[in-house]
């Protein structure tokens, strides 16, 4: 057994703009020097699919590292610290199960599928507004879709979305570790706390947008019965907005980027919703935004390497699908690929993405409707990348395209006023 500090390891600058542009080839280079481990700022990064999968399963020996991010941002005592430390992603004890049990029934595959009509309606409306333009920034367009779905699910008026976008953008960059960014995070938390306090106050006063029950009702019931504290309720609501905003938007933008390279696959998405499911899964394998981070809670021994207690590990589950030892011919984009391994874009272990089934449903429905309305998309300018740690993604994706009219059944959905 050798201590990790005695190993000769490659270095990966995972926070640099160069890394965000092309992490996959840098991982390939690193694996040539060590099969599964590299050094990075603040700790180590795991570069092999099987090791990422194994380590994400060791929940009893590792904990979320939010305390390190808080200190890196000099954020003790801030609103942002409170939001982060009360977030379900940061809680790693019995409280995690209690909070997750409150929301789990709302996020099952069955529950997600019940929202598909709503998802079709929302994307149809967004397309009605945007597709006649013939060209736009796809990332900006996509930013209105998942968050509007989340608003509808929680009974919040979609009219609040434009006012929340800059705050959600800021919180999506929470883990950039730049202390000067803290004032923007504080402002974002304040804006979201005010908006959600207003939503809760309206609901408690009997003012509601949806005639039927929505996701806010069981959350308030849990608060009233003592299942959630006031702080937990507020953090959970902010978390649902933030998690529902950035990740799905970034995945959808990655998917459109993939489709620009594969017009024949994109054309088929317009015809076949079931095929869209394969495309979403292949894009998630190809790359997705998530990198999990953990602190070791023990002197962890893995594959005969000892990693000391309180060491930061970055587990880039979003690009693990490009590891050739787990996925043959990983650079080939093929929705019909036969594979024994499955991507881990939604993570693994006790912090596995709660919203994965909602995300999958809205990505499939969204891609299908987009492919029907945005024909022959072409890249129409340059684009950049968001920082790799945290929530990676493409920054701005200008496209031009041929708009297609709204299909008849989508028109019926939009004219049905049952959902705001």
């Amino acid at each position: 057994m050798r201590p990790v500090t005695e190993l000769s390891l490659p270095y990966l600058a995972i926070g640099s703009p160069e890394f965000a542009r092309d992490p996959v080839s840098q991982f390939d280079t690193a694996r040539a020097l060590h099969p599964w481990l590299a050094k990075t700022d603040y700790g180590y990064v795991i570069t092999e699919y099987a090791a990422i999968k194994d380590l994400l399963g060791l929940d009893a020996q590792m904990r979320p590292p939010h305390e390190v991010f808080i200190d890196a941002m000099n954020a003790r005592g801030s609103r942002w610290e409170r939001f982060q430390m009360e977030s379900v992603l940061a809680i790693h004890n019995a409280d995690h199960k209690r909070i997750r049990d409150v929301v789990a029934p709302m996020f099952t595959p069955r529950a997600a599928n019940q929202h598909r009509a709503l998802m079709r309606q929302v994307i149809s409306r967004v397309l009605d507004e945007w597709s006649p333009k013939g060209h736009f920034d796809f990332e900006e367009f996509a930013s209105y879709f998942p968050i509007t779905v989340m608003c509808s699910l929680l009974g919040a008026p979609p009219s609040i979305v434009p006012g929340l976008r800059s705050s959600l953008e800021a919180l999506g960059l929470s883990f950039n570790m730049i202390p000067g960014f803290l004032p923007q995070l504080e402002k974002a938390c304040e804006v979201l706390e005010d908006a959600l306090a207003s939503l809760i106050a309206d609901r408690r006063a009997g003012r509601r947008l949806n005639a039927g029950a929505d996701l806010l009702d069981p959350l308030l019931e849990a608060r009233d019965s003592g299942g959630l504290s006031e702080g937990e309720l507020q953090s959970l609501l902010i978390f649902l907005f933030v998690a529902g905003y950035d990740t799905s938007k970034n995945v959808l933008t990655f998917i459109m980027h993939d489709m620009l390279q594969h017009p024949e696959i994109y054309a088929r998405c317009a015809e076949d919703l079931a095929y869209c499911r394969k495309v979403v899964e292949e894009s998630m394998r190809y790359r997705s935004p998530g990198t999990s981070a953990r602190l070791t809670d023990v002197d962890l021994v893995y594959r005969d390497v000892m990693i000391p207690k309180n060491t930061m590990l970055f587990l880039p589950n979003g690009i693990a699908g490009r590891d050739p030892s787990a996925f043959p011919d990983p650079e080939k984009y093929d929705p019909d690929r036969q594979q024994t391994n499955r991507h881990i874009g939604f993570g693994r272990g006790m912090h596995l993405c709660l919203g994965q089934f909602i995300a999958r449903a809205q990505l499939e429905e969204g891609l299908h409707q987009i492919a029907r309305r945005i024909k022959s998309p072409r890249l129409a300018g340059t684009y950049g990348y968001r920082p790799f740690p945290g929530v990676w993604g493409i920054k701005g994706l200008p496209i031009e395209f041929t708009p297609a009219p709204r299909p008849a059944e989508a028109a019926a959905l939009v004219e049905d006023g049952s959902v705001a």
Partner: protein
Amino acid sequence: MAKITYVEFNGTKHVIDVQPGMTVMEGAVKNNVPGIDAECGGACACATCHVYVEPSWKAKTGEQGELEASMLDIANNPQPNSRLSCQIRVTEELDGLVVNLPQSQHS
């Protein structure tokens, strides 16, 4: 200990002594039985520890819970005797239990 037989889709049998108090999923994962993914680690949140309980054992393992049934919607070929093995707590009463694994944990 309770002796539990896990039968892979290809017919391969794994007979494992499982400590009461563990779940049927944990008994498989800790003993490297192939065919149980358990992505969420036992939180009834992923439906990748799907098994079919031998009908003669259904009374002792109990029925699907409400959350479990809602998760099983995504499972590969769910049947009335489908269970998520993270939701079956092993007791001495389950000594001799036989569970069959699906072709895949992903639909």
